[in-house]
């Protein structure tokens, strides 16, 4: 399972969190973790929405 992240301005960032180990995966096609994320998306999955600033306090 993955979760989206937001920038401070509230827009969605090009980084996702892999929930199982809380690691941060950048959108870089040479990153094998990102390749796994794309495969996961292609299988019809959807990431969790990003936390809000209030939730991150």
């Amino acid at each position, binding site marked *: 399972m993955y979760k989206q992240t937001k920038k401070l301005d509230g827009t969605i960032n090009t*980084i996702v969190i892999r929930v199982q180990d809380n*690691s941060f995966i950048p959108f870089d096609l040479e*990153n094998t973790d990102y390749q796994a994320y794309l495969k996961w998306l292609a299988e019809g999955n959807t990431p969790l929405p990003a936390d809000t600033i209030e939730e991150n*306090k």
Partner: protein
Amino acid sequence: MSIAISGSSITFADLTTQITAAVGAGFKNRIYNGDMRIWQRGTTFTNPTLANYYTADRWGANRSSDVNGAVVSRIASGLDGFEYALALQRASGNTSAESLSLQYSNESTNTYDLVGSPVTLSFWAKTGSNYSGGPLFVRIRSGTGVDQRVYAYTGLNDFAASTQAITSTWTRYFLTGTVPSSTTQLGFYMFWTPPATAAGADDSVYITGVQLEAGSSATEFERRPIGTELALCQRYFEKGKFHSAGVGSSGAGLGGSLYFRVEKRAAPTMAYTNTITAFVGAATTNVTIATDSVSLYRIGTATAAYQYQQDWTAAIEL
């Protein structure tokens, strides 16, 4: 004095004598951490799998079908010239007959110049006192994809292979082959297979001094400074500490940037542990992750002198 050839050595006009071919001299070894000195992730790994693959820096390991019962660890080699070796062990008491493998995947960009040329693999190995397996199966493997792991190469071709009997005495072994045309990735794959009986206390293969070089014969193992070897490995994995402190306010983003010692081959996956905080939220947020740096912040929870520190890892292995 002119150049003099005597037996198997050449003496030059400056009176230096060379006993091995100059082919590939200087960073001739395409294997990083071939002498098993760099272990940034730890020095013992129980049950490595394809999902939890890397052990010593740049070295992957697993058992067939990802079954449990393998241990990879750093040991004092006891071999003159080598401080450490890697032990690939079947855990004591384990009864699985699934093979244990040690693997190395070379980055594609370090492969192209070898296409069509002979290459030679050399390594030292010995068995543990309760070794139950037969010979080592050794492969120099090519592929036609880009930056894949050696077990999953597109166009996989074991263009050099040996079934190598090994003993309990350190011995250097060799394997030579010619890199096929169209090769875009090159790796080393070694495995041994135990019987389905309970493993003893030291059912292991020990290995060090792994070298893959251009040419049809093995030359002396290349000695690189420890800082150089570490930097080579840090292109793929690095760890460090991040600390941020100042006066912040509730709802503000409080953080900074961390800079890698070595630029990564691509933007790495970041993980954070051992966090200590004051007046900031529990969640790290990354603004950017680049090949040379990361920007990150946490949300302030009060108008106060905040601080947080945490350990980080940056991983961009193949």
